[in-house]
């Protein structure tokens, strides 16, 4: 790299009037015949909900291809862009309606922002039942933090920022 990167800073407490938008969390309408729900909670080091977090999801289409269609900010209801954004509610819960990602070891790529979190965090929510040998080489006891659980409508994925069951967060630095 020839240009040093610009450092990140916390998203702060006041993103709620700026970053959320109508349809942000609906990559497909919940009424879509193949819609699945990806939802969960964001928790702090005391296991308390984080009501001022923001999650973004980015994923492959069901056929494993990477969506490269515009339209995430003004959704037309038909185009799958593969990207969405959801803020947590007062109980620390977030929810997306989307499609099941495809590919060899499909996952939802997730970015986490919050007041109190000085820079964004990256993680992955693998689909339930992903074989261990297809997961990143994280310590065995932490593997389950990057695998979603199945539920009636899709997948549950909690983000624990700190402490017991702390989610594995990833870096991609090339050094």
């Amino acid at each position, binding site marked *: *790299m*020839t*240009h*040093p*990167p*610009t*450092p*990140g*800073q*916390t*998203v*702060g*407490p*006041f*993103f*709620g*009037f*700026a*970053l959320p938008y109508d349809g942000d969390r609906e990559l497909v309408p919940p009424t879509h015949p193949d819609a699945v729900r990806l939802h969960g909670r964001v928790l*702090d*080091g*005391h296991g*308390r909900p984080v009501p001022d977090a923001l999650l973004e999801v*980015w*994923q*492959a289409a069901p056929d494993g291809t*990477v*969506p*490269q*269609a*515009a*339209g*995430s*900010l*003004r959704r037309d209801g038909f185009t799958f*862009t593969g990207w969405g954004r959801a803020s947590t509610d007062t109980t620390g819960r977030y929810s997306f309606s989307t499609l099941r*990602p495809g*590919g060899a070891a499909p*996952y939802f*790529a997730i*970015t986490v922002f919050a*007041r*109190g*979190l*000085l*820079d*964004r965090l*990256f993680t992955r929510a693998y689909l339930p039942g992903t074989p261990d040998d297809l997961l990143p080489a*994280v310590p065995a006891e*932490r593997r389950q933090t990057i695998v979603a659980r199945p539920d009636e409508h899709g997948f549950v994925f909690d983000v624990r*920022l*700190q*402490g017991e069951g*702390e989610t*594995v*967060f990833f*870096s*991609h*630095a*090339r050094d």
Partner: protein
Amino acid sequence: MTQTSASATAEAGSDAAAATQDEISAEIAAIAAEAAGAGETATRLDYPPYRSSLLRHPTKDLHHVDPEGVELWSPVFGEQDVDPLEADLTIQREGDPIGERMTLTGRVLDGEGRPVRHQLVEIWQANSAGRYLHQRDQHPAPVDPAFTGVGRCLTDDDGWYRFVTIKPGPYPWKNHRNAWRPAHIHFSLFGREFTQRLVTQMYFPGDPLFALDPIYQAITDQAARDRLVATYDHDVTTHEWATGYRWDVVLTGSHRTPREGDVE
């Protein structure tokens, strides 16, 4: 990492606002002394002077992975996503917002200095009195009915973004007693790859609050901190209309070699 001290401070954190600026400044100075010369250019996640971070930073090291699959790509935003008028924050409501009108422009680049073309830039900010249009901001400064403080644009063919806005004011917050944030504009940026995602804050040159602010100081390297500060640029200033500031953003290096036909 100082998990023990962080936990201890977390206990005290229930009454965090009781700390004085002198106490916070002493904590900032102690961390700066320990980090001196380390050239640590990333923002610390574990930075106790910013009290809200105590229970919200991971205690385990980030796990390195080579980006793969979707992580090598970024969502695409297009002209249907962003109205060009969204780049002018002074025309979103009836009437003229109060304060110093300013043009803010710069380029979004990757680590090799290549422009990030046609990608989304979002900003949000307080008004000239230091008040956000957010229900949670209840500090007694006036809301400006002509100013929302939210803007979006797409970068152009050479990675340039450009906004017209009002210079934000500093504002008090509850981190400690008599805590004030330096004036800033929040930026949200996308690169060519998912891993380049950046949310940060842009500051103004010479702000007297820099030394006192535990968010800005969570970057321990001065040169890295300086990269968050815009430059006054008289060539951007326009005659009898608006002052001008320039701020370039460099995203982390692009891993994937761009291929012909890539959507950018």
